[in-house]
């Protein structure tokens, strides 16, 4: 069974630029999560989708971050404009029944 796929793996941008990350969850997994993991910290949930609907986006900085999950499968997370403090690893995870989440390898973003 293929795991959660993410791209790109690394991205370096300047502040005020925009960036987008892509996630392909495990086939059949209805729930998809985006996490932000800052160096030295645990992952923090940004947004959770159930199929193509948003379940929780309470910690998503909506003035600069947006996410969508078209057709309830793949998802994209966008940052526009980026700030220095957005430098982090962005993790995508998916789950079938909600309890066990499977994580992708993450995208390491560096904002200079």
């Amino acid at each position, binding site marked *: 069974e293929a795991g*959660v796929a993410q791209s790109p*793996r690394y991205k370096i941008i300047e502040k005020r630029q925009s960036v987008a990350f892509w996630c392909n969850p495990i086939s059949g997994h209805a*729930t998809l999560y985006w996490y932000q993991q800052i160096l*030295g*910290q*645990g*992952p*923090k*949930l940004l947004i*959770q989708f*159930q199929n193509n609907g948003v*379940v*929780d986006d309470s910690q998503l900085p909506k003035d600069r971050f947006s996410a969508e999950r078209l057709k309830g499968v793949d998802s994209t997370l966008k940052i526009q404009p980026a700030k220095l403090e957005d430098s982090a690893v962005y*993790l995508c*995870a998916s*789950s079938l*029944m*909600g*309890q*066990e*989440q*499977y*994580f*992708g*390898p*993450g995208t*390491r973003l560096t904002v200079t």
Partner: protein
Amino acid sequence: TQLLEQSPQFLSIQEGENLTVYCNSSSVFSSLQWYRQEPGEGPVLLVTVVTGGEVKKLKRLTFQFGDARKDSSLHITAAQPGDTGLYLCAGHLASYNQGGKLIFGQGTELSVKP
């Protein structure tokens, strides 16, 4: 405010030593998970504990869920260099009933030297 406090944050030991990592909270969790994360990879689930007082063993790793479901511990016996990594505890809030929201601790960075 950190909902889940992990300690220690860093641990460097010699091969063969034992260690314990703690995960504490003032909140009650419906279940608690332990993950291991290697550099450049996403977290990988090691175990889920659900019942207060539950103990689970995974080879040399022993996981315990506190009686009140507010804390947990991970004990590694005879650590090996392959155990090196970031260990994360994560709890499902008892009051959250949609899709399994996880709250992560800040992690324990373990280094086992040969």
